[in-house]
């Protein structure tokens, strides 16, 4: 509750901060302070301190999983603001609005991570999406950005329509929006529920950019200002996954054997399309867009297996993926040349940048001692534990091996190829932040249970 109310309020505060100050740095610092407040209040709620008490009529349930996810995503947003805050200022003049929109998105994230009725799921998803359409087109002079924004809006609106249709069908069959009521007595899927379930599945697959609903992703990620791509590809995607798993665990958990094959096929398609297409990209930004599709494929393992290990895995995967992707994007934003050649010889002139980027890329590729490995480990063991999914697991590891190809291309460019010296705006604080994120990636890779055990540490209230 803390997070939902406060993020909305802070969003408004940020909007007005633009009136009082035109200085971008002031606004940035205000946003960071607001973000810290948001993170702290959310952590307080995790420990049982609620600032607000409402009767939500069981429409929202604040459990450890959701709150912990919020905390992780807020912490990642904080890192994002700290490390790329300056670059938000370079997008355009309306910095206060950008930050306000980010806070509104976080409000949606908090709703999606705690909804207990399909109505609020819809609301949460919309609160996330609409500010994103604006952020995608925030660079108004950029034609590609405008195109991306419009595309995103049209496709997003369409998928929202699918979701509404699904919700309506489920409501028709069950007479309620409440997830617990939907879950009751749904041992047998009637045609109406099946149709509703499939529509919900497809719309959620759209939001997490799973194949074959992924076509918007590369264009939108490529067209949007790179800072916002970074935000979109990490925090927003992870939030959509929380919604996905909450919805399917809460409403359709019992019928899982009946719809599992479809999700498994979606997962397989996502893995294959994401990874194979990423190989052929020439621009690192576009490659990262496809890599985000590929990584979504791995996160889908949690929904396919739908067990305890999968839940733990999703939390951990989202954390590892967000940190690593934010880190890679933070460096990419400051490069002049977005092609792979742009990274040539980076290690010689900017050793810290090159080293931290390497750590992030190794994490994305899933090499041991980085968080990404443990994330993949959780997902694979969730799927092996769920049984009967060995084909998907094997496909998964083949795709993980393919992903090495395009992640290592950057490492090869940075370390083994010679390149011109390029001016990259990297002040010490930027480097320290990158190093801190790399250290977190390594520590989480060696002690993953530090984070995962928190799922069981707090008492649900």
């Amino acid at each position, binding site marked *: 509750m803390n997070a939902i109310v406060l993020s909305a309020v802070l969003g408004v505060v940020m909007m007005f901060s633009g009136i009082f100050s035109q200085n971008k740095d002031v606004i940035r610092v205000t946003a960071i302070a607001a973000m810290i407040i948001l993170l702290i209040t959310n952590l307080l709620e995790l420990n049982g301190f609620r600032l607000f008490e409402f009767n939500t009529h069981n429409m929202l349930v604040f459990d450890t999983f959701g709150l912990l996810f919020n905390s992780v995503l807020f912490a990642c947003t904080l890192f994002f603001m700290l490390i790329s805050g300056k670059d938000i200022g370079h997008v355009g003049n309306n910095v206060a609005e950008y930050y306000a929109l980010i806070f509104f998105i976080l409000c949606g994230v908090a709703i999606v991570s705690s909804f207990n009725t399909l109505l609020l799921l819809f609301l949460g998803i919309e609160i996330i999406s609409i500010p994103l359409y604006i952020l995608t087109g925030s660079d108004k002079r950029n034609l590609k950005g405008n195109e991306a924004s419009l595309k995103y809006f049209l496709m997003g609106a369409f998928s929202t329509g699918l979701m509404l249709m699904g919700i309506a069908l489920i409501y028709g069959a069950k007479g309620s929006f409440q997830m617990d009521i939907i879950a009751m007595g749904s041992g047998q899927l009637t045609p109406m529920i099946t149709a509703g379930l499939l529509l919900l599945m497809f719309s959620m697959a759209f939001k997490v950019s799973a194949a074959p609903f992924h076509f918007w992703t590369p264009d939108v990620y490529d067209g949007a200002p790179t800072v916002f791509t970074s935000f979109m590809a990490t925090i927003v995607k992870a939030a959509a996954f929380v919604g996905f798993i909450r919805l399917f665990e809460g409403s359709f958990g019992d019928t899982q054997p009946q719809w599992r094959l479809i999700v498994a096929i979606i997962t397989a398609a996502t893995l294959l399309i994401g990874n194979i297409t990423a190989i052929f990209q020439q621009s690192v930004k576009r490659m990262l867009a496809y890599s985000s599709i590929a990584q979504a494929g791995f996160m889908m393992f949690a929904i396919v297996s739908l067990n305890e290990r999968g839940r733990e895995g999703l939390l951990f995967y989202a954390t590892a993926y967000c940190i690593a992707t934010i880190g890679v994007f933070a460096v990419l934003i400051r490069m002049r040349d977005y092609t792979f050649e742009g990274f040539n010889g980076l290690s010689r002139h900017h050793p810290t940048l090159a080293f931290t980027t390497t750590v992030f890329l190794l994490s994305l590729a899933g*090499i*041991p*001692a980085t968080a990404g490995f443990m994330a993949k480990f959780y997902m694979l063991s969730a799927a092996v534990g769920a049984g009967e999914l060995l084909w998907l697991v*094997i496909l998964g590891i083949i795709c993980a*091996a393919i992903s090495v190809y395009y992640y290592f291309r950057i490492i*090869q460019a940075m*370390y*083994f190829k010679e390149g011109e010296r390029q001016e990259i705006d990297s002040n010490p604080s930027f480097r320290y932040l990158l190093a801190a994120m790399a250290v977190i990636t390594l520590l989480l890779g060696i002690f993953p249970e530090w984070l*995962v055990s928190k799922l069981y540490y707090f008492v649900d209230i």
Partner: protein
Amino acid sequence: MIPVLLILIPFLTGIISFFLKNERIARGWSLLSALITFAVSLTGLVFLNNYEYLHADAAWMPALGSRFSIAMDGMGQMLCLLTALLFPVIFIATWRQTYTRANSFYGLMLLAQAGLMGVFVSVDALLFYFFWELALIPAYFLCSRWGGEKRIQVTFKFFIYTFVGSLFMLVGLIYLYTRTPDQSFALTSFYNLHLTHTEESWLFWMIFIAFAVKMPVFPFHTWQPDTYEQSPSAVTMVLSGIMVKMGIFGVIRWLAPVLSFGTWAWGDTVSVLSIIGMIYASLIAIQQDDLKRLIAYSSIAHIGLMALAIFATNDISMQGVMIQMFSHGVNITGMWIVVDLIERQFKTRKISELGGLAQKAPVLAILLVIIALANIALPLTNAFVGEFLMFSGVFTSAASKYSVLFAAGAGISIILSAIYTLNMIQRVFYGSTTTLTARGKDAGRNELWILSVIVVLILVVGVFPKPMLSLTLDTVQQVISRMFIQ
């Protein structure tokens, strides 16, 4: 305590090495570190040789059932000794080599050493996998950064091969873990698994493929000659001297005793592959003109024999594999040192451009001849002990109906190995000098000294192998008692 030190010393000194500015300091620092590690390893072998000092166990990931648990049995001790011994040898032998960014080079070398030590001592499957990959990453950077012209593609191929293999192994290990009664990654829990024969059959390949790529067994070997050729000499020595042992070690520790039925059921298949690999690699080695490629192929042949011997499933052949792991590590490092000397002096590795070196470098020639004879397992050399045991084990094996055929096939490859090794010596060291070798000199003091150490090792182990054999006796008996023969 000892295994913890063996991992920590190279790891920490390796990290520090990255921050050293001066090349000379970095070089000295890494040699110092390698010597300390060697001393620790010897201490564990001679003075503190009881279980109390040779294991460590700490909670790591309790919810996942994985512990930081390491222990050294005879095989672990022997391979750690090999690792600890070869690193200073390699550092001294390549002392004159200069590297750009030497601090990173030595740092990565030491990190690779830490990873290798970890592989040989871990008795928890997840920990083992961690170290398995950690040994690979520094090797990847070493080869791609300091290697020859085609280094980037070649090393990448090497990386992808081993990475894919490891991922399959990971899935196999996870599957085994889900089937353990206590949900644990401990080796002892793996021993208590009860799997159906079908499960064992497919799991065998999931796990074996990682080891097969590393060894390498035919047809997973294609990365190896290119990688050996393109890597800087010091890294080639690590790769061929120690890293290939990871594959053999993996089979003996994690595959044969755990999936005993699968190992037996696929034994004939793997044996046939090994023999094809041995003969094929030997035939290619005969035609090689490049010294590095010749030795690379000869290594495939030797490793094939070891793989064959493991699957023969009896004490004698297993004992042979143990001692041969050590001997092969020592001998091939000696070969590489000689090749490296030749390459540094004449800037070529082509056999056709060399000749008559014995006139110019008599001491080197004598040392090489001894090492080369060890390579073809002549009596009184260390390799003879191993190969003799392996052959008699394979010949009398009860695991397969075709053991006599296998022994005969392996015998052919030994004859072939004599052909290419002696031919190489003859063409490089004897005959008349060429324009290139006319100005040849004997090797420097460092190299001759280190080669003599290797020659002494070859002869001592060859004449008096008993301490080596009794060291690994416990492992052999344990592994064999868990293996399956119908």
